């Protein structure tokens, strides 16, 4: 390894997952992520102690993941917007049962069947819980093919560490584009051992079970409080973001994934015109980097959130800013990708 190879985003996720020890994949084809499913087929179908199953549906896929992951195996499924909606019940079950796994959503334009062009309108679904009940996914938002690789590997570690499903929230553009990537050797992180909960057959111990319900609401409430603790720990320990010249910025842009990349061009162009624009790029969408935004809001009084949506993450930005600064929004919907020029024009409106 170590040497650079040219890879499509979707395939890079697949290779990263396999290298992270994910040898069980259950999925159903959908544009713009099908190359990932195909890659896993190519890899896993000729591996020992591995399984690739093209499930009959996204629902079957997430419930296969539930089963496989319950044995302690690293397991993944992937889809795009409409397919992810179908997984919501299953995701709620898995989160409630505290079973670690990784779900990839390469978002496309929506709602409905939408378009197959890139989108970011599944933010609410991913971060607030598109499924029923109180739960959260660990949500990672890559913005380059290299980051797809690194964050996919991190996703498995985080899922295991917090026994919680993790989601890679990408988009069609990241999935379809090719960039040079490197599969770096990673130092082993110490992870909790799964033998305390995994279903392995009860030889030499009491039988155990993995369930997501209890008719006694008091017990179910205790579960909720237990899970809540994990989320607080995540907020405390695992927040990640990229910050670019926040010092005496005239305005700070907040954006994730593909849009953040486009914004970097806008920021360069702005510099040429003598404008000092900052960027906060959340890398973890849950936990959300609210602290850095709150702190920045003490100094910078103008925020502009840019998304490929009608305005979703902007609510978390506002919650973090909490009235201390002005928070504007600019979005493109339905699969349209904003250009650096239009973003820069938008910025100028508020300066």
């Amino acid at each position, binding site marked *: 390894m170590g040497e650079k190879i040219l890879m499509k985003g979707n395939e890079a996720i697949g290779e990263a997952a396999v290298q992270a020890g994910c040898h069980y994949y259950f999925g159903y084809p959908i544009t*713009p992520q099908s190359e990932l499913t195909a890659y896993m087929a190519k890899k896993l179908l000729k591996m020992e102690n591995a399984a690739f199953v093209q499930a009959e549906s996204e629902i079957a896929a997430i419930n296969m993941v539930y089963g496989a992951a319950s044995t302690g195996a690293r397991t993944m499924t992937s889809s795009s917007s409409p397919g992810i909606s179908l997984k919501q019940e299953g995701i709620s079950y898995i989160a409630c049962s505290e079973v670690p796994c990784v779900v990839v959503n390469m978002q496309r334009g929506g709602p409905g069947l939408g378009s197959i062009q890139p989108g970011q309108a599944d933010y609410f679904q991913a971060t607030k819980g598109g499924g029923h009940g109180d739960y959260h996914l660990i949500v990672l938002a890559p913005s380059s093919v290299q980051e797809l690789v690194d964050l996919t590997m991190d996703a498995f570690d985080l899922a295991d560490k917090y026994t919680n499903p993790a989601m890679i929230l990408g988009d069609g*553009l990241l999935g*379809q584009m*090719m960039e040079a990537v490197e599969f770096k050797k990673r130092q082993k992180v110490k992870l909790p051992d799964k033998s305390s909960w995994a279903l392995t057959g009860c030889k030499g111990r009491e039988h155990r079970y993995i369930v997501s319900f209890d008719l006694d609401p008091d017990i179910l409430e205790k579960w909720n409080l237990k899970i809540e603790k994990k989320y607080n720990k995540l907020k405390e320990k695992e927040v990640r973001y990229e910050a670019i010249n926040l010092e005496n910025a005239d305005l700070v842009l907040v954006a994730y994934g593909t849009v953040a*990349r486009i914004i970097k061009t806008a920021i360069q162009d702005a510099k040429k015109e003598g404008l000092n624009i900052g960027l906060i790029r959340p890398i973890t969408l849950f936990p959300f980097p609210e602290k850095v935004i709150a702190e920045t809001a003490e100094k910078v009084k103008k925020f502009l959130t840019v998304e490929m949506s009608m305005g979703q993450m902007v609510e978390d930005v506002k919650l973090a800013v909490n009235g201390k600064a002005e928070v504007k929004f600019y979005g493109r919907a339905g699969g349209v990708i904003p250009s650096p020029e239009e973003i820069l024009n938008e910025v100028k409106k508020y300066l």
Partner: protein
Amino acid sequence: MIEEVIIAGFGGQGLMLMGRLLAYAGMLEGKKVAWMPSYGPEMRGGTANCTVIISSEEIASPVVHCPKAVIAMNKPSLDKFESTVQKDGLIILNDSLIKQKVKRNDLKVVRVSANEIANKLGNLKVANMVALGAYVKKSGVVKMETIFKVLGKTLTGPKEKLIDINKNALKKGEETAIK
């Protein structure tokens, strides 16, 4: 240095491969590269395209609205992209399928009879390499040798026998670019 090119034509004209070879070559020459296809059913029959960015800096936006160059393999592509090319930019066009003139007069234009040349070489499929050869020569974005090297790495196994004809096609394209 940053070079952006949009390669457009019919699905099935081997556009994606052209782009990939180019990006691969750029990478081998130590540049940052990005390759971005158009995707989806539009490729079915209709026109398709891909964008390649080769740069000495980190590549910020992978989306290119105004490229330095366009390789138009058919008429609809020229119609669609002529206006987007940067001022004084470059257009390589396949005049086997494009009869009309380029309207803008600030652009460098290279007309390549890609299909005829490919036919002469004995395989219509290498028309894409003819056009690519012309582009690589004219733009100088990467060395032709690097493209050759990449061909070697890409066409392996059964496809290996296709290396020569592809090289010849690239060379022929190179020549037309010189004239």
